[in-house]
């Protein structure tokens, strides 16, 4: 009798706990629905509102001449201005430089600067600042990470306050694009840079940009506020005057699940670095929608040809490389892990100057049977019947390197399965980014997954020119013919000739199967409904936030009484858990 009484008490206690929790939820639910509906959305841009954005990695620091990490670029684009910027159609548009002329032999560039721009510290913007910035980047003791972009510049002359002359050692047709691209062309204020020295960009930053640096808590938050006197915005942007937003705050949230939840809870307005897997979730969530943009983000598997420091690669044999290219199910990856991505047929994104549709007929498509044939012909047969092919004693098990992020691992796991269907084994080794790149340069691997964003065709130079051998040309592909053609792409002034040489390089890469190009990724932002972004063009700029504006929104009110219900919940779960266990352990 005593036993039965105890079990009834237990069940009673559990039901009470559940009741409390359920009532807590219901109470909360009603409150939400009775919230006043948001007033009708105003048509034109409304100025005001603090804009909060969440990113995965932290900003390094804010001196454009000394940092080049992606996260830092988002912030420096708002604090500094560049001479020229990309228009929506990826054409070069004027910004701080009103106009510019290029000499016929491509050795001299003359920029005429705007006269109304001013630095945040009040100093007027003159050509002296441009010379100071470029000299600082090229100065060897500064160890600037972006010095390699300006290798060809001889020197910079400033005849008067508002004209800048750049003389080149060798012609480089891509100089303007390099300046426009990301933060390489941003101009720093000489006075502040000298004044703060080492701490410039760390504790203070001064440029001509639409926002001024305000505060920073390393590893968690960074805030910039509106620059009221800003009237010299680039003409191609929708708003050239002071930005609509009062301030921008970047919050560092490494965990993607948490970023999404903060977005849906309304604590942030925009979430960057959303992986494609969460696209479905963003679509159904209330009050939030995904904003898809096409960054020039090319995913590819890079093959190793030459011997590494300790290991000779299996992919030295071209047939293995071709078989791998045939065996990878690119559509399958796109369908499951990369919704919205488009199949890559060559190195260059269709919207990048230098892309040529003719490359399509050289590209290999998914054909496992063909892959098996190629392997059979090359003598890779499965002699010991263990499921993977081998040849004169060496098992065909590729060593693949990847990063720990979920999307990277998913793609590699999918490829591993695809390759196993045609008898090629693959061991996946996960390294965090610091060791990934240095090990990749050492070369003791067969294949590694890589994704890189580059807005002009110059990427081919870095990937295939022998001068770039240990890195970033990690294949490494050393071939005079390719070097000669690549030199033309940079030096010649005739655009058709550059187009043909770009095409030649891409065809060479596909024929020698140096890489297995997968797809161009569709970038995803999670954006809350009350945010309006005029345009996001391919180089992932949010046109430096000038055009973005926010509707006045009612922030979510969260009932404080929920604390009690919360604790009841944990107690309830505990009681339920242990009564189940107790009943379980009571049986004889």
């Amino acid at each position: 009798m005593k036993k039965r009484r105890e079990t009834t008490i237990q069940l009673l206690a559990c039901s009470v706990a559940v009741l409390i929790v359920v009532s807590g939820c219901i109470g909360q639910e009603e409150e939400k629905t009775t919230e006043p509906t948001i007033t009708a959305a105003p048509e034109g841009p409304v100025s005001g509102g603090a804009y909060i954005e969440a990113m995965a990695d932290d900003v390094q620091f804010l001196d454009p001449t000394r940092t080049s990490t992606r996260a830092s670029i988002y912030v420096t684009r708002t604090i500094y201005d560049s001479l020229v910027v990309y228009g929506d159609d990826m054409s070069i548009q004027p910004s701080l430089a009103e106009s510019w002329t290029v000499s016929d032999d491509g050795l001299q560039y003359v920029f005429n600067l705007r006269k109304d721009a001013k630095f945040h510290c009040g100093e007027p913007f003159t050509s002296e600042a441009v010379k100071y910035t470029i000299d600082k980047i090229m100065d060897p003791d500064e160890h600037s990470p972006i010095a390699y972009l300006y290798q060809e510049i001889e020197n910079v002359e400033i005849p008067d306050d508002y004209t800048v002359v750049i003389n080149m050692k060798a012609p480089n047709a891509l100089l303007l694009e390099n300046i426009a691209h990301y933060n390489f062309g941003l101009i720093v204020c000489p006075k502040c840079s000298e004044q703060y020295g080492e701490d410039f960009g760390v504790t203070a930053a001064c440029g001509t940009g639409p926002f001024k640096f305000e505060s920073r808590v390393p590893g968690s938050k960074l805030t910039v506020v509106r620059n009221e006197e800003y009237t010299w915005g680039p003409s191609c942007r929708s708003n050239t005057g002071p930005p609509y937003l009062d301030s921008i705050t970047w919050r560092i949230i490494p965990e993607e699940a948490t970023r999404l939840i903060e977005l849906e809870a309304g604590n942030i307005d925009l979430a960057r670095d959303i992986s494609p897997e969460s696209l479905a979730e963003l679509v159904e969530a209330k009050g939030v929608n995904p904003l898809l943009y096409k960054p020039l983000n090319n995913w590819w598997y890079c093959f190793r040809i030459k011997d590494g420091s300790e290991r000779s690669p299996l992919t030295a044999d071209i047939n293995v490389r071709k078989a791998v290219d045939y065996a990878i199910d690119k559509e399958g990856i796109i369908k499951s892990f990369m919704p919205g991505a488009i199949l890559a047929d060559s190195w260059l994104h269709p919207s990048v100057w230098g892309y040529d549709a003719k490359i399509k007929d050289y590209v290999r498509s998914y054909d496992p049977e063909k892959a098996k044939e190629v392997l059979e012909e090359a003598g890779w047969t499965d002699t010991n019947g263990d499921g993977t092919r081998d040849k004169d004693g060496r098992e065909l098990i590729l060593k693949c390197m990847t990063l720990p992020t979920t999307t990277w691992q998913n793609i590699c796991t999918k490829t591993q399965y695809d390759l196993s269907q045609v008898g090629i084994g693959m061991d996946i080794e996960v390294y965090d980014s610091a060791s990934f790149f240095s090990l990749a340069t050492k070369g003791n691997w067969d294949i590694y997954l890589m994704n890189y964003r580059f807005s002009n065709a110059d990427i081919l130079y870095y990937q295939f020119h022998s001068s770039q051998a240990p890195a970033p040309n990690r294949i490494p592909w050393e071939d005079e013919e390719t070097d000669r053609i690549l030199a033309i792409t940079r030096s010649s002034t005739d655009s058709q000739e550059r187009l043909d040489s770009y095409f030649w390089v891409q065809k060479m890469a596909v024929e020698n199967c140096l890489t297995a190009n997968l797809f161009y990724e569709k970038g995803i932002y999670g954006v809350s409904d009350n945010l309006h972004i005029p345009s996001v063009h391919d180089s992932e700029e949010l046109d430096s936030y000038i055009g973005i504006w926010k509707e006045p929104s009612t922030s979510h009110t969260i009932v404080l009484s929920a604390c009690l219900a919360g604790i009841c919940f944990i107690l309830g779960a505990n009681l339920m858990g242990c009564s189940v266990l107790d009943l379980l352990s009571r049986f004889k």
Partner: protein
Amino acid sequence: MRMKKYILKRLLWIVPLIFLVQTLLFLLLTVIPGDIAVLIATPNAPPETIEALREELGLERPLIVQYIDYVTSVFRGDLGKSFIFRLPVSEILVGRLINSLELVTVGMMIAVVAGIPLGVIAAIKRDSLYDRFICTGVLFGISVPLFFIELMTILIFGLYLGWFPVSQRGGPIWTVEGLRHIILPALCLASICLAMIVRLTRSSMLDVLSEDYILTARSKGLKERVVIVTHALKNALIPVVTVIGLQYGFLFGNTVVTEVIFDWPGIGRLTYESIIMRDFPLIRGAVLCIALVFIVINLLVDLIYLRLDPRIEYD
């Protein structure tokens, strides 16, 4: 006085310990492949840029020179500048350390405030229905993986019910915003050490209740409540206090997962990220901070233990 000598002896021991911790850390860091220069420079940067960056960060100097500078600089009080943020390490650490201490303290307070009464009641009502509830609940508590509790809390509280924010720190705990932000991570941390405290209070209370002096106290005609509070509790809490101290140290060292999931800007997460980024000065600073907190807590625990239990002399 004996106590001061004892504390001095313990504090003196910290100097060699820091030296040993640093050496072990330095060995580990030299073995880890890859370095920060590769990370800061874009993947497309040629090797010269990476060499230049290594030069600037002083990674090119021979290992011995780096080691000596690495170890002695702590005693000079200069923890150096973080490779990534280029801010002095001490500036970054102070804020992050306070955040972590705040989170762990609130978590531990919840666990203690809930744990000790539960343990005492379970001991008094031994083998009753209530006692068996608590025991199975405790087994449940110590077996569940922490990240599971946290993910579920985020899913249920953060997402479906939306009662509490699940990320960032809203400010100090005396502000409403600060409280709202700390409640979920603190509850999760509390849930794992709550079970431990309840179990320990119960067993030490049972030990004490079976002692002879409790019988003497009862034979004096004292009320049961008085016997429990003045006589039994004081004795039972001595071992509990030591374990709470050790638990605090254990919890403080293991907040990495909680801080990563709840995006709490604590020192655990800072260590994790700095190891991923190979930012040596930051790693060294963070690990030293955690080690120092560990030592201070253990010393405090021993002092409280001595203070509570008169029988033990300061050996």
